[in-house]
């Protein structure tokens, strides 16, 4: 168990180092830190002075180490476009993205698992066919089209929900702007969360369905029926429980994807989160923000993968035994 943990931590660190080197290359060679920081008519001497001050004359390995050290202290440089420290920009926008991703994954899990269980048990019912056909469409439709469709239906035609922005937000100790406490904020959250979560919903549903169908074929389910257990006990206490291992893995990894796909959803709904900031940085070639976003998402993905692997072992005793052996 401990050996496994150490090996996984080592692998995670390796991934982070590679990503940090890529981010450094972006920061140092693709963007030009000097010309972005001095005014147009700066003399060559001024440029050289700034270059020396920023440590750009040091050996590359030193510069890279310096970059990683600064990143570890949340110093990602200054945005070319906004002329503000990148960490402040990301910090302001992070709550919006995290709230959106959290609600979207709740939506995906809360609806995906029941639908998966239903379609797994009633394999050939009419409703199952309708749901499965719908899920294929859900997988094929690009996220932004789903968003536009929902806006047209619920905002433009029915006027039920707002079509863009976060609505009212309240501040938590000045650190966290939340939209979860006001009705306006919650209403604004519905369409983006559904848009973002729909793909994950279909994924979770299809996975639970196929796992359920597999588990229901096993001997211990048949034995459960022979013992005269109720359907409910068989389906939920015995079958569903055993489908959860792969489901948790997929959900864990997919939360990372959710954060990446929030770029699209945030653009459609003009949601003031990190994704919108990132897409603006790509449009304006604002390298410091891109590098910081790359590092940040790497941290999130690597952590999620790690947590999923550990959870996996905690939940499923079979894996624990296999690792020990």
């Amino acid at each position, binding site marked *: 168990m401990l050996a496994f943990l150490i090996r996984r931590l080592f692998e995670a660190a390796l991934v982070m180092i590679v990503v940090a080197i890529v981010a450094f290359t972006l920061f140092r060679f693709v963007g030009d830190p000097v010309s972005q920081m001095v005014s147009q008519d700066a003399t060559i001497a001024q440029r050289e002075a700034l270059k020396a001050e920023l440590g750009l004359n040091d050996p590359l390995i030193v510069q890279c180490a310096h970059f990683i050290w600064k990143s570890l202290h949340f110093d990602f440089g200054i945005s070319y476009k906004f002329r503000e420290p990148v960490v402040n920009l990301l910090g302001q926008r992070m709550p919006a993205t995290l709230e959106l991703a959290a609600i979207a994954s709740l939506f995906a899990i809360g609806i995906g698992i029941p639908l998966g269980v239903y379609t797994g048990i009633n394999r050939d019912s009419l409703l199952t066919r309708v749901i499965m056909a719908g899920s294929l469409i859900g997988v*094929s439709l690009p*996220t932004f089209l789903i968003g536009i469709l929902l806006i047209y239906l619920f905002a433009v035609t029915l006027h039920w929900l707002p079509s863009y922005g976060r609505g009212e937000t309240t501040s938590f100790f000045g650190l966290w702007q939340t939209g979860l406490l006001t009705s306006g904020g919650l209403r604004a959250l519905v369409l983006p969360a559904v848009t973002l979560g729909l793909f994950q919903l279909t994924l979770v549903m299809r996975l639970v369905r196929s796992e359920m169908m597999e588990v229901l074929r096993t001997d211990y389910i048949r034995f459960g029926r022979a013992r005269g257990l109720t359907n409910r006990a068989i389906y939920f206490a015995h079958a569903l429980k055993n489908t959860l291992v792969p489901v948790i893995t997929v959900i864990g990894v997919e939360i990372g994807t959710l954060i990446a796909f929030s770029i699209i959803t945030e653009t459609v709904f003009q949601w003031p989160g990190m994704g919108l900031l990132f897409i603006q940085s790509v449009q304006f070639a604002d390298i410091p923000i891109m590098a910081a976003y790359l590092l940040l998402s790497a941290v999130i993905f690597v952590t999620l993968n790690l947590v999923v692997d550990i959870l996996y072992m905690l939940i499923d005793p079979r894996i624990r035994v296999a690792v020990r052996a």
Partner: protein
Amino acid sequence: MVDSLIKAPRSRLMLRLDAIRDSHLFYSFTRSWIVMVAAFFALLIVAAAALAPLIAPSNPLDLASLDLMNARIPPRWLENGDPQFLLGTDDQGRDLLSALLYGAQVSIGVALLSTVLAILIGVTVGLIAGYYGGIIDTVIMRLTDVQLTFPAILTALLVNGATRAILGDRQIQGSEFWILVVSIALAFWVKYARVVRASTLQERNKDYVHAARLIGVKSWKIIVHHILPNVLGPVTIIGTISLALAIITEATLSFLGVGLPPSHPSLGTLVQVGNEFLMSGEWWIVFFPGIVLAGLALSVNIVGDWLRDALNPKLR
């Protein structure tokens, strides 16, 4: 009587067609009407897009022919529709049908080229990693691990942004198409590399490879002539399914404003432009490109799924 029982000798082409008709693949194709409809729809759009310069009523790239007086005309069958514009016009007075045909051409072009490029990169890397093994293999596989941690769309965006930063605003103009192709290809090559590497590892230790090596065939010749044909099977399946993903990715990047410029129609830019007029009730500008995009992605997906199941020996 006897004559009719003896079949006339068949030409080589006819034998080919017979072979296709008798194959398992064709049989399973005719079993599912959904797959047939999807394949027909996809082919229809591809054909229409390829023939765009011949069948489109006007050329949307020819700015001189545009007239702002024609802007935002609804489809022909609606009130205020103009018989000249079957599906209506957008905000610049472009005929939507023409823009759609040319746009589909660009979208399909980007998707095809980027998938081919991704396959080229992935297969080459996979063959090298699998055949030579050792430290090369370890390094390459670790790097693919890192890239797989990130969703493809994020990789595409990062490559896109970095290219923009390197080229600068002025040089980007005109090369957006190729930037798109490269960023999508670099986002998707990993899948091919891993699949090809896995099959190469198996093929490498088979007798025919040992025999070739014994009689002194050069490594690259063994790789290209002997191993390559044997590892391409899964690549075609992944390629078909990724094609739908590539279409969606192109549209997404263009929609996000980092693909093609709005003056140059692709399915994504058309949706992006149309989205701005949704609020004012001009739904057709976004509706038709959206429907074509969704239909194309869905039908390619269906065909890809079917191909995977039909070619999977375990499911037969």
